[in-house]
């Protein structure tokens, strides 16, 4: 009766040793299988620097506005060719003659010479009546739209692109008249892009439902197009 308890107390370590041997053998077997499955292609070294940057122009095409394009072109015409001997009338609130194509809707600012100088026609006029070069159109707008100008300088108004980090690259900031037609500054309604869930552009044909498993196994399902549809209607069958 003295020997039996001794063998009982020694049995657990022996079982652990046997289990450990089994686990080790299993790991060896797994490593062998993984080595067999691994392809000959081992890791390759790649150069991670000097990757090309993506230069994709973002943003929608603007609404082609004839007048706006004229302004963006930089006033490449001379007003005095027509206006050299005209008596300037301060009263008209509509565009006539050569200007009839312009659309005018600038709120209470409805006089030509509020912005254009009366005698220096290729220049603008400040609120004090001074001549403002045509290149200073931002200042001209800021004369009335001071809060917008302040926000534009601060970053809360206007489109931006390029680099937010000035130490890396340059920030591109649009001027007022890039987005706003000075004669009709309000934005026009634009067409929205389609709601989500609608495919746009050329894409692969959509996958079959529950195609995830197929894709994991990388065996694309072969589905005949005809099996996706019901039987063809009879020739003499009328639509309901």
């Amino acid at each position, binding site marked *: 009766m003295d020997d039996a308890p001794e063998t009982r107390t020694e049995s657990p370590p022996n079982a652990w040793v046997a289990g450990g041997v089994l686990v080790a*053998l299993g790991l060896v077997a797994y490593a062998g299988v993984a080595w067999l499955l691994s392809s000959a292609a081992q890791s390759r070294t790649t150069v991670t620097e000097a990757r090309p940057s993506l230069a994709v122009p973002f943003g929608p095409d603007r609404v082609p506005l004839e007048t706006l394009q004229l302004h963006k072109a930089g006033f490449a015409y001379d007003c005095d060719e027509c206006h050299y001997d005209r008596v300037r009338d301060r009263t008209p609130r509509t565009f006539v003659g050569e200007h009839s194509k312009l659309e005018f809707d600038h709120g209470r600012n409805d006089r030509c010479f509020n912005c254009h100088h009366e005698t220096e026609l290729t220049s603008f006029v400040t609120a004090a009546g001074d001549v403002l070069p045509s290149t200073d159109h931002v200042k001209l707008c800021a004369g009335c739209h001071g809060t917008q100008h302040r926000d534009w300088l601060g970053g809360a108004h206007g489109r931006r692109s390029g680099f937010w980090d000035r130490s890396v690259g340059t920030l591109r900031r649009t001027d007022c008249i890039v987005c706003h037609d000075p004669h009709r500054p309000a934005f026009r309604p634009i067409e929205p892009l389609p709601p989500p869930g609608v495919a746009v552009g050329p894409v692969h044909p959509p996958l079959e439902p529950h195609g995830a498993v197929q894709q994991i196994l990388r065996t694309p399902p072969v589905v005949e197009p005809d099996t996706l549809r019901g039987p063809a209607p009879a020739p003499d069958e009328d639509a309901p």
Partner: protein
Amino acid sequence: MSQDAPNGPLLDPEEGTTRRNFLKAAAVTTAGVGAVAASLAPLRELDATFDKEAWLQKHYHELTPAEMDKVLARLEDEAKAEYGVDVTVRDVKPKAKTKYAYALNLGVCVGCRRCAYACEKENNTSRAPGKQYIRVLEMEQGGIDLETANHQYDPETVPQPGKFYMPVQCHQCDKPPCTKVCPVNATWKEPDGIVVVDYNWCIGCRYCEAACPYWARRFNFEKPVLNPADMNTDTAYLSNRPRPVGVMEKCTFCLHRVREGRYPACLEACPTGARAFGNVYDPKSEIRYILENKRVFVLKEDVGTLPNFFYYFDA
């Protein structure tokens, strides 16, 4: 031989290696090895599709630079094999002393969805159906009623009278509920504030999608459908590299762009300039100007997520 009991130990040390003990151990060992081999048999059937390195890849935080280079090279090879496009996959690290924030002026947003489609193109999200990170909500003017908001609006032109539009994307919260619920730590918040997903670590349980109060996470129920000719080949591991099926994805503020100093794609696409972005630690940044001078608010402030995405109304 007096201690030879039927229920005795497998190997009796006092007995030494006897024929009986040896046969016992050999039988058990053979059975064990056979069982292990049988359990691994399905791996053999995967053969060509089984990628050992992808299977045994470590967590993003445990990869050494050399291992990360191997992973990136492998991902580029996979993209080349899948789409036939030379995609570069980088691991863009966060900048020091930088925390990103976003501001959106609801007063000038017209709801044209240009941002959502620019994002789709930039981030290689699935095209069929369109899996867009940005969801633009159309709401009645006078209040922010998310329950009656419509994100499927499709009028001829926008903005419609009496409506306003609120784009919603990942808010990169300072207390992100999505990362808390991840059971495998496949999503986390980076030092610069961006919440990212390791697509190779995600198990696709979608807990994070359920936890997000802004519906900012998207799940790849199927393999993403991409047009190889339209793919963005400048990708990063944590943002816009081609994703496998069955993983979560989300807006990362265009991590691969902003960590190089560039603006996010959605910002550059906005035709009205409603979006602003920058480093809140920089007192001269645009985002700081807005946060200091505009009356900004966050969406669902009551849920306590502390978003880094701010809205404001301004002319």
